[in-house]
């Protein structure tokens, strides 16, 4: 499930003089540039997260949905601590990219990557609050991003795909409660099939 763009910020409010971060106060320039209402913060509750070498799997228990975040999307998500601006997140991205031998993207490109990732994270509710993008980053699409970065760096474009939520039927000796049942004998529960629902009791 890849979304093509970001919603533009529709309103602004007076920014505070500074916002605390782990790396000290943010510059006014950062704040003006991002013109955000809320700093991105990763959602932690009701999620089961599994980190693999190249991707991160997330199962949303509440919504019964599973997602696969590629490395860039995962890097952005992990840095959404509620104190760091997207510009700061972007600044810290290249280190990992350079280590992979990818061309070092300029700050503007890096910020585009971050906003594209934030848009997707918004869409699948992996952030505590919706983050609205400044107008200059609002209409980004993955295609534009690949065009801008070049094919060699296309792998750096954040991608979040949805995967079918985990099911357990393929291992079961018999049909678990709630499973569609054709007859009483296929169900694990000796009470068999619920005739009203056509499901195992």
């Amino acid at each position: 499930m890849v979304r093509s763009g970001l919603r533009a910020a529709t309103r602004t409010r007076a920014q505070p003089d500074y916002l605390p971060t782990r790396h000290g106060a943010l510059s006014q320039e950062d704040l003006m540039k991002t013109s955000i209402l809320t700093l991105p913060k990763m959602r932690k509750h009701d999620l089961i997260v599994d980190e693999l070498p190249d991707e991160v799997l997330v199962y949303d228990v509440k919504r019964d949905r599973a997602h696969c975040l590629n490395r860039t999307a995962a890097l952005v998500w992990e840095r959404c601590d509620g104190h760091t601006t997207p510009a700061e997140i972007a600044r810290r991205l290249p280190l990992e990219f350079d280590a992979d031998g990818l061309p070092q993207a300029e700050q503007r490109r890096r910020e585009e990557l971050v906003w594209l990732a934030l848009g997707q994270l918004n869409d699948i509710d992996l952030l505590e609050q919706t983050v609205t993008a400044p107008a200059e980053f609002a209409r980004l699409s993955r295609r534009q991003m690949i065009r801008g970065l070049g094919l060699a760096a296309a792998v750096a474009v954040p991608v979040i795909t949805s995967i079918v939520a985990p099911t357990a039927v393929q291992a079961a000796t018999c049909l678990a409660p709630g499973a569609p049942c054709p007859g009483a004998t296929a169900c694990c529960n000796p009470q068999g099939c619920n005739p009203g629902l056509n499901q195992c009791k």
Partner: protein
Amino acid sequence: LLRGAWRQSPPATSVDLSEAQLNDILPLLLESGAAALAWWQLRATPLAETAAGRALHDAYRRFRLSARVHERELAHVFALLRAQGIEPVLVKGWASARLYPDAALRPYGDLDLCVAPREFVRARATLKCLEDLPGHFVDLHSGFSRIGQTKEQEGYRTFRRLRRVLNRRDDTRLWEQLFSRSQVVSLTSAPEALATGPEFQNSIRVLCPEDHLRLLSAHLLRSGARRPAWLCDIAVLLETREPDFNWDIAFAETQAQTRNWLATTIALAEDLLGADCGERPEFARSGSLPRWLAPAVVGEWVKVSEVGRQMSDVRCEMSDLGATLAALPARSRYARWHNPIRATAAVGGQFNDWPRLPYQLGELFLRLPELPKQLHSLWQQRRYPKGNARDRGEPVLGPACAEGTVAGLQSSIS
């Protein structure tokens, strides 16, 4: 494709497939729960980049998350029972998966827990609140003796009462014997993902490898060897066994029939999956496999997906009782009756080269008393309209105690 697929580095030589062939068997792999194993086998080959390879990779991701969910449920259920002073033993499922290089290589179903026969009623009452909770399905067993028997086999009316009397003493003795050899292991596959808090217990009791091997063998055969994962479990257990694995325990104090079953499944794992069972005593060898057995097992694996589709077809036909009665026996019943492995195990037969027809007829005879009940169930399904609680917008969670359980579970998920 599945030969040796469970190893850390599967043998590259065993993958001799074209993309078209992989496309052909893809539905079968997905339906039978062997998709993650297939991906593990193919992950370093060019086939991993094909559309079928990507579908298998997706299945691996699903199994991976499923394993995490399963571990949390396990930790939760063990805590619930231990709070009541009941010590359960986990069999199959995660108890087998922990031996794979990656717990995601095996699909997960229900939680098979065994408790002492004298504690069964109390344990069932304790877990009552989980019954309507999505995902938390515990298949609770009283002792170990009936593992692998389907509810249908357990319920053969003809012998139920007699067996209950005969088994009572054996069940208790068997439980005490196996429990004394059982082991406590940690849910260590992903320590950072584990739940913590009083409502979770991260140590799980499992059978010792020797007893687990015997139990897996009985389950495989009694269930008609329908899933490749069940035979892989046996192969993995054999290959990962410690040097002090005691064959005498695995084969001790069992009837000739059980010894025959165990030797047969070991030989089957070697023959079909290329399991490296290493050195073992003479009594743990079955000689040659019955000629009919390996083709029958492969046939069952192929049939899994077909029967799954047929069963959903039958459900669609429920609006017409006549069609249902005609279709059901002819379809799902045929699939069972035709399974010579299940039939042999159901009547306690031996796996040899003798014809299977007597066993199949024997099982059919045993099932006859259940026919009125099945017909009644079908008639009931005809009388009531289709639909489920979720579709009608009704709450799916049932008893009030489930709310506390859900809250406890969800609060710890972060």
